[in-house]
């Protein structure tokens, strides 16, 4: 009953949100704010694309930063070795290409990694990430190795500098959300959800599980690659350990979980809350307390809302509404009977 809101309301909401995002740099011209907004959009895109495989199908990938890094390095290397462009709007044209390269690389990797499930899959994706970090460092004659890789530097100065990057990131984030939305509405989306519930059963009823998972894996990589390219150009200088950074993948997964993995809005919401909070917290809270606080907030949220904010709040609203209408609770929170009772 909650989903039956009229179509125009949803559409209106979309338009308002988009208009707000477009107007944001004008409303808050300070570059400090814009920088945070830009990094937040980056995680909106990463968390939404992580969600396609991790949320819909329940395959926890911690390798997003491999594709993020491939995107950043592809763009940087193309600019360094193939197409010489001066800094400006031109290099943005290469962003989709960087995403495409990441997606193509993802095909064989997904082919190997998706032979496994659960913890093994998560570990395999971590391994993929480390391999690319290693390659970026060791193939120093091509990538510049640990000394890093520079991009052409745009001549924009002052507070204007962040604006083009903000809009580029906004476009990528929109693409990520639209891809997630389209997947969710398609047969592939249904198949992925079936895999999450019970992969063996899904396979038994004829869901082409393997190709669906691969599609999800490759789409995630495509978005991550584009995000990496924009980010690399934004910082103008990249290092292996900072673009193929485990913290990026883990951040994306955490945000999706926080908001509610498997939902469309969840990852967006998670990123909108966590990334600004993290940057602000890092900025204002000094030292070790930052780590302790960060960990503590996390534990608190997960233990209180294990399914994430969107589903938990949704359930709360449902139950309120049900109570108001005098109807019985739709679905009481299922908790398996603890073994304690049996054993003691």
């Amino acid at each position, binding site marked *: 009953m909650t989903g039956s809101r009229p179509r125009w309301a949803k559409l209106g909401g979309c338009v308002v949100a988009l208009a707000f995002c477009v107007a944001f740099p004008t409303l808050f011209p300070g570059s400090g704010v814009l920088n945070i907004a830009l990094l937040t959009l980056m995680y909106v895109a990463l968390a939404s694309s992580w969600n396609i495989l991790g949320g819909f199908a*329940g395959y*926890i990938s*911690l390798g997003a930063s491999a594709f993020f890094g491939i995107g950043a390095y592809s763009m940087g290397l193309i600019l360094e070795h193939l197409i010489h462009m001066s800094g400006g709007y031109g290099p943005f044209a290469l962003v989709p290409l960087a995403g495409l390269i990441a997606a193509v690389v993802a095909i064989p990797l997904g082919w*190997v*990694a998706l*032979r*496994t*499930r*659960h*913890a*093994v899959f*998560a*570990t*395999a994706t*971590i*391994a993929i990430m*480390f*391999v690319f970090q*290693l390659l970026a*460092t*060791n193939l120093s004659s091509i990538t510049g190795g640990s000394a890093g890789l520079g991009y052409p530097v745009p001549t924009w100065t002052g507070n204007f500098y962040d604006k083009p990057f903000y809009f580029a990131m906004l476009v990528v984030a929109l693409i990520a959300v639209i891809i997630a939305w389209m997947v969710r509405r398609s047969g592939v989306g249904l198949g992925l959800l079936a895999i999450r519930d*019970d*992969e*063996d*059963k899904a396979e038994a009823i004829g869901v082409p599980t393997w190709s669906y998972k691969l599609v999800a894996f490759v789409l995630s990589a495509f978005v991550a690659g584009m995000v990496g390219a924009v980010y690399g150009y934004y910082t103008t200088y990249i290092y292996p350990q900072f673009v193929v950074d*485990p913290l990026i993948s*883990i951040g994306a*997964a*955490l945000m999706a*979980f926080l908001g509610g*993995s498997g939902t469309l809005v969840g990852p967006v919401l998670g990123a909108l809350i966590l990334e600004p909070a993290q940057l602000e917290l890092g900025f204002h809270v000094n*030292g*070790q*307390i*930052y*780590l*302790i*606080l*960060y*960990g*503590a907030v*996390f*534990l608190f949220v*997960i*233990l209180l809302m*294990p*399914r994430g904010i969107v589903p938990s709040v949704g359930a709360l609203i449902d139950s309120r509404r049900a109570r108001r209408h005098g109807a019985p609770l739709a679905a009481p929170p*299922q*908790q*398996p009977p*603890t*073994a*304690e009772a*049996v*054993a*003691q």
Partner: protein
Amino acid sequence: MNLSLLFGALVLGLLTGGVYGVMASGLSLTFGVMRIINVGHAALVITGAFISYEVFRHLHLDPFAGLVITMPLMFVIGVVLEVLFIRPLKTDREELSVLVTWALALALEGVLGYFFGTDLVQTTVSYGNSTFVVGGVHIAYVYIYGFLLAVAAMAALAALLYRTNLGAAIRATMLNRQAAQLIGIDVERVSAISFGIGAALAGVGGTVYGIVNAFNPDSHYDLIGHLLVIVVLGGVGSMRGAFLAALLIICIQDITQVMISPDWADLSFFVVLTIMLVVRPQGFFGVRVREAT
């Protein structure tokens, strides 16, 4: 081809591999029993290293003897963490455990940094540099002690698992959590104890790690990737597998480091993993886990 160098790398690989084996088997145990991925395991290793360092510094107890304090303390820390943070996870355990243990790792790093600072420290024992010669290669006694300790810890773990009632309960829980529950095993208690044992094993590994390496609170980032790969290679949930995988992979890594190039040594890790995933996705000793619903 330099044979004595090859031999030296092999010996070193086996000896340090044993220590990694103990760390990894603790990780494998918690995975097997609880179906959780503990990415905070390496942070526990570093916690163990710090405890052992402090015991050594303040009580002037040899770090190996200091294990009588380090291990029980780590066990208690493990049990407390499990009860407070892992037990409350009722749904989507496996997925959520990644997040919870990651948060735990960060919080542990913060707590360690708060108490011990971020300077690098090392447990410098008096016999740290004494060596003996085998086949033209100098071998440090600390590596031998570390390896013997690792073997002893593995033997104790095996005795616990196969000779005691608790061990039987742990194995039953690993096999099938629900069935174990049905036959009256208190799986929550078993889980807490297993997590404690995992932490204690991390403490053993940390003690040796702290003697051989300088470390600080963020050293856990260097370890966790390797430990996870070892566990997957050995077959998740198999402690014997984890131990043997550690021996094998660290040997391969050390030989690559010496004979080819240190830059590519880490890659050998992942090459072996990839081959394994293609040929035998369940690991050396793993059984293919079917969806438990």
